[in-house]
Protein backbone atom coordinates (compact mmCIF):
# COMPACT_ATOMS: atom_id res chain seq x y z
CA UNK A 1 0.00 0.00 0.00
CA UNK A 2 1.46 3.38 -0.94
CA UNK A 3 1.57 5.82 1.90
CA UNK A 4 -0.04 8.96 0.51
CA UNK A 5 0.51 10.78 3.76
CA UNK A 6 4.24 10.06 3.61
CA UNK A 7 4.37 11.44 0.08
CA UNK A 8 2.63 14.59 1.17
CA UNK A 9 5.01 14.99 4.10
CA UNK A 10 7.94 14.59 1.73
CA UNK A 11 6.71 17.58 -0.25
CA UNK A 12 5.30 19.90 2.38
CA UNK A 13 6.63 21.46 5.58
CA UNK A 14 3.38 21.29 7.47
CA UNK A 15 -0.08 19.79 7.02
CA UNK A 16 -3.40 20.84 8.43
CA UNK A 17 -5.44 18.09 10.05
CA UNK A 18 -9.10 18.35 10.99
CA UNK A 19 -10.98 19.29 14.15
CA UNK A 20 -13.52 17.58 16.35
CA UNK A 21 -15.86 14.83 15.26
CA UNK A 22 -18.00 14.04 18.30
CA UNK A 23 -18.44 17.57 19.60
CA UNK A 24 -19.25 18.90 16.12
CA UNK A 25 -21.87 16.19 15.68
CA UNK A 26 -23.55 17.45 18.86
CA UNK A 27 -24.03 20.77 17.16
CA UNK A 28 -25.75 18.84 14.40
CA UNK A 29 -28.17 17.17 16.75
CA UNK A 30 -26.42 14.08 18.10
CA UNK A 31 -27.80 13.32 21.55
CA UNK A 32 -25.31 13.06 24.37
CA UNK A 33 -24.66 9.45 25.30
CA UNK A 34 -25.47 8.16 21.83
CA UNK A 35 -22.73 6.60 19.74
CA UNK A 36 -21.54 9.00 17.01
CA UNK A 37 -20.55 5.97 14.90
CA UNK A 38 -24.18 4.86 14.51
CA UNK A 39 -24.76 7.95 12.40
CA UNK A 40 -22.57 6.39 9.70
CA UNK A 41 -25.52 4.07 9.15
CA UNK A 42 -28.46 6.15 10.34
CA UNK A 43 -27.59 9.70 9.26
CA UNK A 44 -24.91 9.41 6.57
CA UNK A 45 -25.99 12.75 5.11
CA UNK A 46 -24.92 14.50 8.33
CA UNK A 47 -21.56 12.77 8.38
CA UNK A 48 -21.04 13.92 4.80
CA UNK A 49 -21.89 17.47 5.85
CA UNK A 50 -19.27 17.35 8.60
CA UNK A 51 -16.60 15.86 6.35
CA UNK A 52 -17.38 18.42 3.69
CA UNK A 53 -17.09 21.27 6.18
CA UNK A 54 -13.57 20.13 7.02
CA UNK A 55 -12.66 19.83 3.35
CA UNK A 56 -14.08 23.28 2.71
CA UNK A 57 -11.93 24.65 5.53
CA UNK A 58 -8.96 23.34 3.58
CA UNK A 59 -7.66 20.44 5.64
CA UNK A 60 -4.99 18.16 4.20
CA UNK A 61 -5.99 15.25 6.42
CA UNK A 62 -9.29 14.43 8.07
CA UNK A 63 -10.37 11.70 10.43
CA UNK A 64 -13.24 9.29 9.90
CA UNK A 65 -16.16 9.03 12.30
CA UNK A 66 -14.90 5.75 13.74
CA UNK A 67 -13.23 6.67 17.04
CA UNK A 68 -15.31 4.17 19.02
CA UNK A 69 -15.80 1.58 16.27
CA UNK A 70 -14.58 -1.33 18.33
CA UNK A 71 -16.45 -4.23 19.83
CA UNK A 72 -15.86 -3.22 23.41
CA UNK A 73 -17.27 0.26 23.02
CA UNK A 74 -20.10 -0.45 20.59
CA UNK A 75 -21.28 -3.25 22.83
CA UNK A 76 -22.80 -0.50 24.99
CA UNK A 77 -25.09 0.43 22.16
CA UNK A 78 -25.89 -3.15 21.17
CA UNK A 79 -23.91 -2.60 17.99
CA UNK A 80 -20.84 -4.79 18.54
CA UNK A 81 -21.79 -7.04 15.63
CA UNK A 82 -21.74 -4.20 13.13
CA UNK A 83 -18.51 -2.51 14.13
CA UNK A 84 -16.75 -3.62 10.95
CA UNK A 85 -19.57 -2.20 8.82
CA UNK A 86 -19.68 1.08 10.76
CA UNK A 87 -15.92 1.50 10.40
CA UNK A 88 -16.10 0.65 6.71
CA UNK A 89 -18.94 3.10 6.21
CA UNK A 90 -17.10 5.91 8.01
CA UNK A 91 -14.30 5.58 5.47
CA UNK A 92 -16.45 5.06 2.38
CA UNK A 93 -18.44 8.19 3.29
CA UNK A 94 -15.14 10.02 3.59
CA UNK A 95 -14.19 8.76 0.13
CA UNK A 96 -17.51 10.02 -1.16
CA UNK A 97 -16.94 13.46 0.38
CA UNK A 98 -13.45 13.68 -1.10
CA UNK A 99 -14.59 12.60 -4.56
CA UNK A 100 -17.43 15.08 -4.59
CA UNK A 101 -14.96 17.92 -4.12
CA UNK A 102 -12.26 16.26 -6.21
CA UNK A 103 -10.12 16.91 -3.17
CA UNK A 104 -6.71 15.36 -2.53
CA UNK A 105 -7.25 15.27 1.22
CA UNK A 106 -6.03 12.22 3.07
CA UNK A 107 -8.57 9.99 4.77
CA UNK A 108 -7.32 8.92 8.17
CA UNK A 109 -9.20 6.08 9.84
CA UNK A 110 -9.70 7.10 13.46
CA UNK A 111 -9.09 4.42 16.10
CA UNK A 112 -9.72 5.48 19.70
CA UNK A 113 -9.10 3.45 22.85
CA UNK A 114 -11.20 0.40 23.73
CA UNK A 115 -12.21 1.92 27.05
CA UNK A 116 -11.13 -1.22 28.89
CA UNK A 117 -8.14 -1.56 31.17
CA UNK A 118 -5.47 -3.94 29.98
CA UNK A 119 -3.83 -6.72 31.92
CA UNK A 120 -2.36 -6.96 34.50
CA UNK A 121 -4.30 -4.07 36.08
CA UNK A 122 -7.48 -4.82 34.17
CA UNK A 123 -8.92 -7.76 32.32
CA UNK A 124 -8.32 -6.94 28.64
CA UNK A 125 -5.63 -9.23 27.23
CA UNK A 126 -3.18 -7.99 24.62
CA UNK A 127 -4.43 -10.55 22.12
CA UNK A 128 -8.02 -9.48 22.57
CA UNK A 129 -7.12 -5.81 22.21
CA UNK A 130 -5.32 -6.57 18.94
CA UNK A 131 -8.44 -8.40 17.73
CA UNK A 132 -10.66 -5.42 18.56
CA UNK A 133 -8.39 -2.98 16.74
CA UNK A 134 -7.77 -5.33 13.84
CA UNK A 135 -11.47 -5.64 13.10
CA UNK A 136 -11.76 -1.85 13.09
CA UNK A 137 -8.60 -1.47 10.97
CA UNK A 138 -9.85 -3.90 8.33
CA UNK A 139 -13.19 -2.09 8.19
CA UNK A 140 -11.47 1.26 7.67
CA UNK A 141 -9.17 -0.23 5.05
CA UNK A 142 -12.07 -1.79 3.20
CA UNK A 143 -13.91 1.54 3.21
CA UNK A 144 -10.95 3.28 1.60
CA UNK A 145 -8.92 4.93 4.36
CA UNK A 146 -5.45 6.08 3.26
CA UNK A 147 -3.88 5.76 6.67
CA UNK A 148 -4.98 4.51 10.09
CA UNK A 149 -4.97 6.97 12.93
CA UNK A 150 -4.63 5.69 16.49
CA UNK A 151 -5.60 8.45 18.94
CA UNK A 152 -6.32 9.43 22.55
CA UNK A 153 -4.39 6.48 23.95
CA UNK A 154 -3.06 6.61 27.51
CA UNK A 155 -1.71 3.09 28.01
CA UNK A 156 1.50 1.97 26.31
CA UNK A 157 0.23 -1.57 25.81
CA UNK A 158 -2.97 -0.37 24.19
CA UNK A 159 -0.87 1.74 21.81
CA UNK A 160 1.21 -1.34 20.99
CA UNK A 161 -1.90 -3.47 20.44
CA UNK A 162 -3.38 -0.88 18.08
CA UNK A 163 -0.18 -0.55 16.03
CA UNK A 164 0.05 -4.32 15.77
CA UNK A 165 -3.48 -4.31 14.37
CA UNK A 166 -2.46 -1.70 11.77
CA UNK A 167 0.46 -3.90 10.77
CA UNK A 168 -1.82 -6.92 10.48
CA UNK A 169 -4.05 -4.86 8.19
CA UNK A 170 -0.91 -3.92 6.25
CA UNK A 171 -1.73 -0.22 6.48
CA UNK A 172 0.42 2.84 7.20
CA UNK A 173 -0.50 4.39 10.51
CA UNK A 174 -0.11 7.36 12.82
CA UNK A 175 -0.48 7.29 16.60
CA UNK A 176 -1.12 9.93 19.22
CA UNK A 177 -1.55 9.79 22.96
CA UNK A 178 -3.47 12.08 25.27
CA UNK A 179 -1.18 13.77 27.80
CA UNK A 180 -3.97 15.16 29.93
CA UNK A 181 -2.64 14.66 33.46
CA UNK A 182 -0.05 17.32 34.36
CA UNK A 183 1.87 16.56 31.18
CA UNK A 184 1.62 12.79 31.52
CA UNK A 185 -1.00 10.41 30.19
CA UNK A 186 -3.54 9.18 32.71
CA UNK A 187 -1.44 6.03 33.06
CA UNK A 188 1.74 7.98 33.78
CA UNK A 189 3.36 7.81 30.33
CA UNK A 190 5.53 10.78 29.30
CA UNK A 191 6.20 12.43 25.92
CA UNK A 192 9.75 11.11 26.19
CA UNK A 193 8.45 7.58 26.76
CA UNK A 194 6.40 7.89 23.58
CA UNK A 195 9.38 9.07 21.53
CA UNK A 196 11.36 6.07 22.73
CA UNK A 197 8.47 3.73 22.12
CA UNK A 198 7.87 4.71 18.47
CA UNK A 199 11.59 4.98 17.70
CA UNK A 200 12.08 1.36 18.75
CA UNK A 201 9.20 -0.04 16.73
CA UNK A 202 9.91 -2.38 13.82
CA UNK A 203 7.31 -0.73 11.62
CA UNK A 204 7.33 2.95 12.40
CA UNK A 205 4.36 5.28 12.20
CA UNK A 206 4.15 7.93 9.48
CA UNK A 207 3.53 10.47 12.22
CA UNK A 208 3.12 10.44 15.99
CA UNK A 209 2.41 12.85 18.80
CA UNK A 210 -0.37 14.11 21.00
CA UNK A 211 -4.08 14.82 20.79
CA UNK A 212 -6.95 15.94 23.02
CA UNK A 213 -5.56 16.73 26.48
CA UNK A 214 -6.15 19.83 28.54
CA UNK A 215 -6.20 22.83 26.23
CA UNK A 216 -3.90 24.54 23.75
CA UNK A 217 -1.10 25.65 26.07
CA UNK A 218 -0.68 22.15 27.51
CA UNK A 219 -0.55 20.79 23.97
CA UNK A 220 2.24 23.11 22.86
CA UNK A 221 4.27 22.29 25.98
CA UNK A 222 3.76 18.60 25.22
CA UNK A 223 4.97 19.10 21.64
CA UNK A 224 8.04 20.90 22.99
CA UNK A 225 8.66 17.96 25.31
CA UNK A 226 8.45 15.59 22.34
CA UNK A 227 10.59 17.59 19.93
CA UNK A 228 13.25 18.05 22.60
CA UNK A 229 14.19 14.41 21.97
CA UNK A 230 14.58 15.05 18.24
CA UNK A 231 12.50 12.20 16.89
CA UNK A 232 12.96 11.42 13.20
CA UNK A 233 9.26 10.72 12.71
CA UNK A 234 7.06 13.78 12.00
CA UNK A 235 5.20 15.10 15.04
CA UNK A 236 1.41 15.49 15.21
CA UNK A 237 -0.40 18.07 17.39
CA UNK A 238 -4.17 17.83 17.66
CA UNK A 239 -5.24 19.86 20.67
CA UNK A 240 -8.66 20.73 22.02
CA UNK A 241 -10.12 24.18 21.45
CA UNK A 242 -9.81 25.12 25.08
CA UNK A 243 -11.95 23.44 27.69
CA UNK A 244 -15.63 22.54 27.59
CA UNK A 245 -18.17 24.87 29.13
CA UNK A 246 -21.92 25.31 28.97
CA UNK A 247 -23.42 28.39 27.40
CA UNK A 248 -27.17 28.89 27.23
CA UNK A 249 -27.77 25.24 27.90
CA UNK A 250 -25.49 23.80 25.26
CA UNK A 251 -21.85 22.87 25.22
CA UNK A 252 -19.14 25.20 23.96
CA UNK A 253 -15.39 25.24 24.04
CA UNK A 254 -13.48 28.11 25.55
CA UNK A 255 -10.83 28.39 22.80
CA UNK A 256 -11.60 31.10 20.24
CA UNK A 257 -10.54 30.84 16.57
CA UNK A 258 -7.88 33.44 17.36
CA UNK A 259 -6.46 31.33 20.21
CA UNK A 260 -6.45 28.28 17.96
CA UNK A 261 -4.61 30.24 15.27
CA UNK A 262 -1.99 31.15 17.89
CA UNK A 263 -1.91 27.53 18.95
CA UNK A 264 -1.35 26.33 15.38
CA UNK A 265 1.51 28.73 14.88
CA UNK A 266 3.16 27.84 18.20
CA UNK A 267 2.64 24.10 17.71
CA UNK A 268 4.44 24.34 14.39
CA UNK A 269 7.27 26.41 15.87
CA UNK A 270 7.47 23.83 18.66
CA UNK A 271 8.17 21.13 16.10
CA UNK A 272 4.81 19.73 14.93
CA UNK A 273 4.39 19.10 11.21
CA UNK A 274 0.83 17.88 11.27
CA UNK A 275 -1.37 20.34 13.10
CA UNK A 276 -5.07 20.10 13.78
CA UNK A 277 -7.65 20.36 16.51
CA UNK A 278 -9.57 17.92 18.64
CA UNK A 279 -12.69 18.35 20.81
CA UNK A 280 -14.41 21.70 20.25
CA UNK A 281 -12.48 22.57 17.08
CA UNK A 282 -14.92 23.68 14.37
CA UNK A 283 -14.31 24.41 10.68
CA UNK A 284 -14.22 28.12 11.61
CA UNK A 285 -11.27 27.44 13.92
CA UNK A 286 -9.56 25.46 11.17
CA UNK A 287 -9.88 28.21 8.59
CA UNK A 288 -8.16 30.61 10.94
CA UNK A 289 -5.47 28.07 11.76
CA UNK A 290 -4.78 27.49 8.07
CA UNK A 291 -4.69 31.19 7.35
CA UNK A 292 -2.16 31.75 10.11
CA UNK A 293 0.05 28.85 9.10
CA UNK A 294 0.11 30.12 5.53
CA UNK A 295 0.81 33.74 6.39
CA UNK A 296 3.49 33.24 9.01
CA UNK A 297 6.78 31.52 8.45
CA UNK A 298 7.98 28.89 10.85
CA UNK A 299 9.51 30.60 13.87
CA UNK A 300 11.98 29.47 16.51
CA UNK A 301 10.81 27.24 19.35
CA UNK A 302 8.50 29.19 21.66
CA UNK A 303 9.54 29.71 25.26
CA UNK A 304 7.23 28.66 28.06
CA UNK A 305 6.50 32.31 28.72
CA UNK A 306 5.41 32.89 25.14
CA UNK A 307 3.11 29.88 25.34
CA UNK A 308 1.59 31.23 28.54
CA UNK A 309 1.16 34.70 27.12
CA UNK A 310 -0.49 33.65 23.86
CA UNK A 311 -2.48 30.61 24.94
CA UNK A 312 -3.13 31.02 28.64
CA UNK A 313 -1.92 29.32 31.78
CA UNK A 314 -1.03 25.64 31.29
CA UNK A 315 -2.21 23.05 33.82
CA UNK A 316 1.34 22.11 34.77
CA UNK A 317 4.84 23.53 35.00
CA UNK A 318 7.01 21.60 32.56
CA UNK A 319 10.13 19.98 33.83
CA UNK A 320 9.75 21.49 37.25
CA UNK A 321 8.52 18.51 39.16
CA UNK A 322 10.21 15.16 39.11
CA UNK A 323 8.04 12.20 39.81
CA UNK A 324 9.39 11.16 43.19
CA UNK A 325 7.43 8.66 45.19
CA UNK A 326 7.42 8.80 48.96
CA UNK A 327 10.00 6.71 50.72
CA UNK A 328 8.64 3.37 51.77
CA UNK A 329 10.27 1.17 54.35
CA UNK A 330 9.77 -1.88 52.19
CA UNK A 331 10.46 -0.63 48.67
CA UNK A 332 14.11 -0.92 47.63
Amino acid at each position, binding site marked *: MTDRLQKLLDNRDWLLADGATGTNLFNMGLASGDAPELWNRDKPEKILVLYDAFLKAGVDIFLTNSFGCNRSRLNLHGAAEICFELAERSASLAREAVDKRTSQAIIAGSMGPTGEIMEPLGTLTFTRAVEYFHEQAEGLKSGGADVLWIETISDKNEFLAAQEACNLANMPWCGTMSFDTVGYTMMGFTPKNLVELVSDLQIKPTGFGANCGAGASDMVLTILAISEHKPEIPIIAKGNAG*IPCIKEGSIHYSGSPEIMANYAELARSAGARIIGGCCGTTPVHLERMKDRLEKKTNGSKPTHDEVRELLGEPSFQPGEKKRVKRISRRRK
Partner: protein
Amino acid sequence: MTDEYDDDIVLSELPDDELVPQMHDDLYDGLNEEIVEAVNILLERGWMPYKILTEALVEGMRIVGIDFRDGILFVPEVLLSANAMKAGMKILKPLLAETGAPRMGKMVIGTVKGDIHDIGKNLVSMMLEGAGFEVIDLGINNPVENYLEAMEAEKPDILGMSALLTTTMPYMKVVIDRLKELGLREDIVVLVGGAPLNEEFGKAIGADAYCRDAAVAVETAKEFMARKHNQMIASA
Protein backbone atom coordinates in the same frame (compact mmCIF):
# COMPACT_ATOMS: atom_id res chain seq x y z
CA MET B 1 8.82 1.29 36.64
CA THR B 2 8.72 -1.99 38.56
CA ASP B 3 9.87 -1.63 42.08
CA GLU B 4 11.47 -4.30 44.19
CA TYR B 5 10.38 -4.98 47.70
CA ASP B 6 12.11 -6.05 50.84
CA ASP B 7 10.56 -9.14 52.43
CA ASP B 8 12.49 -8.87 55.66
CA ILE B 9 9.84 -6.89 57.51
CA VAL B 10 7.82 -9.19 59.76
CA LEU B 11 4.51 -7.44 60.33
CA SER B 12 3.54 -9.50 63.37
CA GLU B 13 6.70 -8.38 65.17
CA LEU B 14 5.96 -4.68 64.74
CA PRO B 15 4.35 -2.83 67.64
CA ASP B 16 1.08 -1.02 66.80
CA ASP B 17 2.75 2.35 66.38
CA GLU B 18 5.06 0.92 63.72
CA LEU B 19 2.59 -1.44 62.13
CA VAL B 20 0.08 1.29 61.23
CA PRO B 21 2.64 3.47 59.39
CA GLN B 22 3.89 0.29 57.72
CA MET B 23 0.34 -0.27 56.49
CA HIS B 24 0.29 3.24 55.06
CA ASP B 25 3.47 2.36 53.16
CA ASP B 26 2.08 -0.95 51.99
CA LEU B 27 -1.10 0.71 50.76
CA TYR B 28 1.03 3.26 48.96
CA ASP B 29 2.95 0.42 47.34
CA GLY B 30 -0.27 -1.47 46.58
CA LEU B 31 0.70 -4.61 48.46
CA ASN B 32 -2.42 -6.70 48.79
CA GLU B 33 -1.30 -9.63 50.94
CA GLU B 34 0.58 -7.44 53.38
CA ILE B 35 -2.54 -5.33 54.00
CA VAL B 36 -4.67 -8.40 54.61
CA GLU B 37 -2.07 -9.77 57.01
CA ALA B 38 -1.79 -6.50 58.91
CA VAL B 39 -5.56 -6.07 59.22
CA ASN B 40 -5.78 -9.54 60.72
CA ILE B 41 -2.94 -8.82 63.13
CA LEU B 42 -4.66 -5.67 64.40
CA LEU B 43 -7.93 -7.54 64.82
CA GLU B 44 -6.12 -10.21 66.85
CA ARG B 45 -4.62 -7.48 68.98
CA GLY B 46 -8.14 -6.36 69.81
CA TRP B 47 -8.46 -3.27 67.58
CA MET B 48 -12.00 -2.23 66.75
CA PRO B 49 -12.73 -2.65 63.03
CA TYR B 50 -13.68 1.02 62.70
CA LYS B 51 -10.36 2.10 64.20
CA ILE B 52 -8.47 -0.09 61.72
CA LEU B 53 -10.51 1.31 58.88
CA THR B 54 -9.92 4.95 59.73
CA GLU B 55 -6.41 4.98 61.17
CA ALA B 56 -4.81 2.44 58.87
CA LEU B 57 -6.75 2.15 55.62
CA VAL B 58 -8.44 5.53 55.17
CA GLU B 59 -5.39 7.43 56.37
CA GLY B 60 -3.20 5.39 54.01
CA MET B 61 -5.48 6.12 51.08
CA ARG B 62 -5.56 9.78 52.01
CA ILE B 63 -1.80 9.90 51.46
CA VAL B 64 -2.19 8.03 48.16
CA GLY B 65 -4.83 10.58 47.19
CA ILE B 66 -2.49 13.50 47.83
CA ASP B 67 0.24 12.10 45.60
CA PHE B 68 -2.34 11.23 42.94
CA ARG B 69 -3.57 14.79 43.01
CA ASP B 70 -0.02 16.12 42.76
CA GLY B 71 0.88 14.01 39.75
CA ILE B 72 3.34 11.78 41.59
CA LEU B 73 1.20 8.66 41.44
CA PHE B 74 -0.87 7.78 38.38
CA VAL B 75 -3.82 5.54 37.69
CA PRO B 76 -1.85 2.25 37.63
CA GLU B 77 -0.39 2.81 41.11
CA VAL B 78 -3.63 4.11 42.56
CA LEU B 79 -5.53 1.13 41.22
CA LEU B 80 -3.09 -1.18 43.00
CA SER B 81 -3.48 0.82 46.21
CA ALA B 82 -7.25 0.75 45.92
CA ASN B 83 -7.20 -2.98 45.34
CA ALA B 84 -5.07 -3.48 48.44
CA MET B 85 -7.51 -1.36 50.42
CA LYS B 86 -10.39 -3.37 49.02
CA ALA B 87 -8.74 -6.57 50.21
CA GLY B 88 -8.52 -5.09 53.70
CA MET B 89 -12.09 -3.81 53.51
CA LYS B 90 -13.34 -7.26 52.62
CA ILE B 91 -12.30 -8.47 56.06
CA LEU B 92 -13.58 -5.41 57.87
CA LYS B 93 -16.91 -4.94 56.13
CA PRO B 94 -18.92 -7.69 57.89
CA LEU B 95 -17.29 -6.76 61.20
CA LEU B 96 -18.14 -3.08 60.75
CA ALA B 97 -21.78 -3.96 60.30
CA GLU B 98 -21.72 -6.15 63.43
CA THR B 99 -20.01 -3.57 65.59
CA GLY B 100 -22.33 -0.76 64.50
CA ALA B 101 -19.62 1.53 63.14
CA PRO B 102 -20.85 5.01 62.23
CA ARG B 103 -22.07 5.49 58.65
CA MET B 104 -21.05 8.63 56.86
CA GLY B 105 -23.85 8.57 54.30
CA LYS B 106 -25.11 6.80 51.26
CA MET B 107 -24.13 7.35 47.65
CA VAL B 108 -25.37 6.08 44.33
CA ILE B 109 -22.68 6.32 41.67
CA GLY B 110 -22.39 5.43 37.99
CA THR B 111 -20.75 6.25 34.67
CA VAL B 112 -23.21 7.95 32.31
CA LYS B 113 -24.84 6.60 29.19
CA GLY B 114 -22.56 5.92 26.25
CA ASP B 115 -19.47 5.84 28.42
CA ILE B 116 -17.60 2.70 29.26
CA HIS B 117 -14.91 4.20 31.45
CA ASP B 118 -14.96 3.31 35.08
CA ILE B 119 -11.44 3.66 36.45
CA GLY B 120 -12.10 6.96 38.16
CA LYS B 121 -15.57 5.98 39.24
CA ASN B 122 -14.27 2.76 40.78
CA LEU B 123 -11.63 4.67 42.66
CA VAL B 124 -14.22 7.05 44.01
CA SER B 125 -16.41 4.09 45.01
CA MET B 126 -13.65 2.34 46.84
CA MET B 127 -12.35 5.41 48.57
CA LEU B 128 -15.81 6.46 49.71
CA GLU B 129 -16.44 2.99 51.08
CA GLY B 130 -13.13 3.26 52.80
CA ALA B 131 -14.22 6.56 54.28
CA GLY B 132 -17.34 4.95 55.75
CA PHE B 133 -19.94 5.63 53.07
CA GLU B 134 -22.36 3.05 51.82
CA VAL B 135 -21.90 3.03 48.04
CA ILE B 136 -24.28 1.64 45.46
CA ASP B 137 -22.33 1.34 42.24
CA LEU B 138 -24.43 1.26 39.08
CA GLY B 139 -21.46 0.49 36.83
CA ILE B 140 -21.10 1.94 33.34
CA ASN B 141 -23.41 3.18 30.58
CA ASN B 142 -26.29 4.41 32.74
CA PRO B 143 -29.30 6.07 31.17
CA VAL B 144 -31.19 8.53 33.35
CA GLU B 145 -33.72 5.82 34.29
CA ASN B 146 -31.04 3.80 36.11
CA TYR B 147 -30.17 6.74 38.34
CA LEU B 148 -33.84 7.44 39.06
CA GLU B 149 -34.58 3.82 39.94
CA ALA B 150 -31.59 3.61 42.26
CA MET B 151 -32.58 6.88 43.94
CA GLU B 152 -36.07 5.57 44.49
CA ALA B 153 -34.90 2.23 45.84
CA GLU B 154 -31.92 3.34 47.88
CA LYS B 155 -32.77 6.87 49.02
CA PRO B 156 -29.12 8.00 48.84
CA ASP B 157 -27.77 11.29 50.18
CA ILE B 158 -25.48 11.75 47.21
CA LEU B 159 -25.60 11.01 43.51
CA GLY B 160 -22.26 10.66 41.76
CA MET B 161 -21.83 10.74 37.98
CA SER B 162 -18.71 10.12 35.96
CA ALA B 163 -17.75 10.53 32.28
CA LEU B 164 -14.42 10.34 30.51
CA LEU B 165 -15.47 11.41 27.05
CA THR B 166 -16.28 14.89 25.83
CA THR B 167 -19.11 13.23 23.91
CA THR B 168 -20.72 11.75 27.03
CA MET B 169 -20.13 14.42 29.65
CA PRO B 170 -23.11 16.53 28.50
CA TYR B 171 -25.32 13.59 29.49
CA MET B 172 -24.82 14.61 33.12
CA LYS B 173 -26.89 17.66 32.35
CA VAL B 174 -29.61 15.44 30.92
CA VAL B 175 -29.79 13.60 34.25
CA ILE B 176 -29.76 16.75 36.36
CA ASP B 177 -32.40 18.39 34.17
CA ARG B 178 -34.62 15.34 34.62
CA LEU B 179 -34.16 15.47 38.38
CA LYS B 180 -35.27 19.11 38.29
CA GLU B 181 -38.31 18.27 36.16
CA LEU B 182 -39.35 15.61 38.62
CA GLY B 183 -38.79 17.93 41.57
CA LEU B 184 -36.10 15.63 42.97
CA ARG B 185 -33.08 17.83 42.57
CA GLU B 186 -33.30 19.46 46.00
CA ASP B 187 -33.39 16.09 47.73
CA ILE B 188 -29.94 15.05 46.71
CA VAL B 189 -26.35 16.25 46.46
CA VAL B 190 -25.01 15.77 42.94
CA LEU B 191 -21.27 15.31 42.53
CA VAL B 192 -19.67 14.96 39.11
CA GLY B 193 -16.20 14.00 37.91
CA GLY B 194 -14.14 12.80 34.96
CA ALA B 195 -11.08 13.87 33.00
CA PRO B 196 -12.64 16.35 30.54
CA LEU B 197 -14.73 18.14 33.20
CA ASN B 198 -13.89 21.25 35.13
CA GLU B 199 -15.39 23.30 37.93
CA GLU B 200 -17.15 25.74 35.60
CA PHE B 201 -18.74 22.89 33.73
CA GLY B 202 -19.98 21.31 36.96
CA LYS B 203 -21.58 24.58 37.97
CA ALA B 204 -23.10 25.23 34.58
CA ILE B 205 -24.87 21.89 34.39
CA GLY B 206 -26.27 22.39 37.89
CA ALA B 207 -24.19 19.93 39.91
CA ASP B 208 -23.40 20.72 43.54
CA ALA B 209 -19.72 20.17 42.98
CA TYR B 210 -17.10 18.95 40.54
CA CYS B 211 -14.53 16.61 42.07
CA ARG B 212 -11.26 16.52 40.20
CA ASP B 213 -10.14 13.22 41.68
CA ALA B 214 -11.17 10.49 44.10
CA ALA B 215 -9.54 12.15 47.09
CA VAL B 216 -11.42 15.37 46.43
CA ALA B 217 -14.62 13.38 45.98
CA VAL B 218 -14.26 11.90 49.46
CA GLU B 219 -13.58 15.29 51.03
CA THR B 220 -16.49 16.89 49.18
CA ALA B 221 -18.89 14.10 50.09
CA LYS B 222 -17.90 14.42 53.75
CA GLU B 223 -18.35 18.18 53.62
CA PHE B 224 -21.86 17.90 52.20
CA MET B 225 -22.81 15.29 54.78
CA ALA B 226 -21.57 17.57 57.56
CA ARG B 227 -23.62 20.43 56.12
CA LYS B 228 -26.69 18.24 55.91
CA HIS B 229 -26.13 17.12 59.48
CA ASN B 230 -25.83 20.72 60.69
CA GLN B 231 -28.97 21.73 58.82
CA MET B 232 -30.86 18.89 60.46
CA ILE B 233 -29.69 20.01 63.88
CA ALA B 234 -30.56 23.63 63.11
CA SER B 235 -34.06 22.77 61.97
CA ALA B 236 -34.74 20.29 64.79
